[in-house]
């Protein structure tokens, strides 16, 4: 199968790129979730201190 290497290279690059991108999105999601949870906790404590 002549030039099959090029076909599989293209296929591999496409899927590797999408997996890397999805991983990066997942990491960003985790980071944002952590920030939201941290800020909500801080707001709860602030509310407890001020009696609101």
């Amino acid at each position, binding site marked *: 199968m002549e*030039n099959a290497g090029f*076909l599989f290279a*293209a*296929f591999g690059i496409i899927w590797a790129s999408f997996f890397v991108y999805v991983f990066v999105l997942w990491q960003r*999601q985790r980071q944002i979730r952590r920030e*939201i949870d941290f800020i909500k906790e*801080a707001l709860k404590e*602030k509310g407890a201190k001020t009696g609101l």
Partner: protein
Amino acid sequence: MENRKTNNRWLLGLSLVLMIAALYLIFLYVPTEETMGVVQRIFYFHVPLAWVSFLAFFVVFLGSILYLWKRNSKWDILASSSAEVGAVFTTLFLITGSIWAKPIWGAWWTWSPRLTTAMILWLIYLAYLLVRAYASDDQRGARFAAIVGIIGFIDVPIVALAITLWRTQHPGPVVFQGGLAPPMLLTLLVSLAAFTALYLILVTQVAGLKKDRDEVMRLKELLR
């Protein structure tokens, strides 16, 4: 939020089914093209990646116009999410085109009209993202990026029509001119559906991230 998660699951399921079908058709069903051999099967990734990147830029174009008109951040979120995902698709269609070109043309790249205008499209996406990243504040960045998104869209029809307007090394139009045998057309359309579904999922996820980022900014304001 629950509706968003349910819709995402349906879309993810649909995308998976379509992608598996596309892979089966590309590697096992569609006959090998006579002139180029097996490497021609890159066509079934390369063309859908290109078409979806045009779709993504069209969404950027519409979202940018609506944002400048209505000043509602949801349009900016849509435009910027589509730009980010569109940049990934554009990068991949350039790379797959280059990989296909090497065994067929004997060169990774030529400065033919189609390839040059496609490279310009990639640079316009990059400019859109950089304008947002380096603006002094978010609203200013969103406005400037929207202008880039509207003006930059001019390149999309130029890329699409480059193979009919100018003499170019890139193969001429075949899809809408009846140049594809039915199995090839079926494979192309299923692959296009699969990549379009993938684009929709990714844009949904990126838009969700940007909304969460806005929520973080809002909560930080409350903390002050």
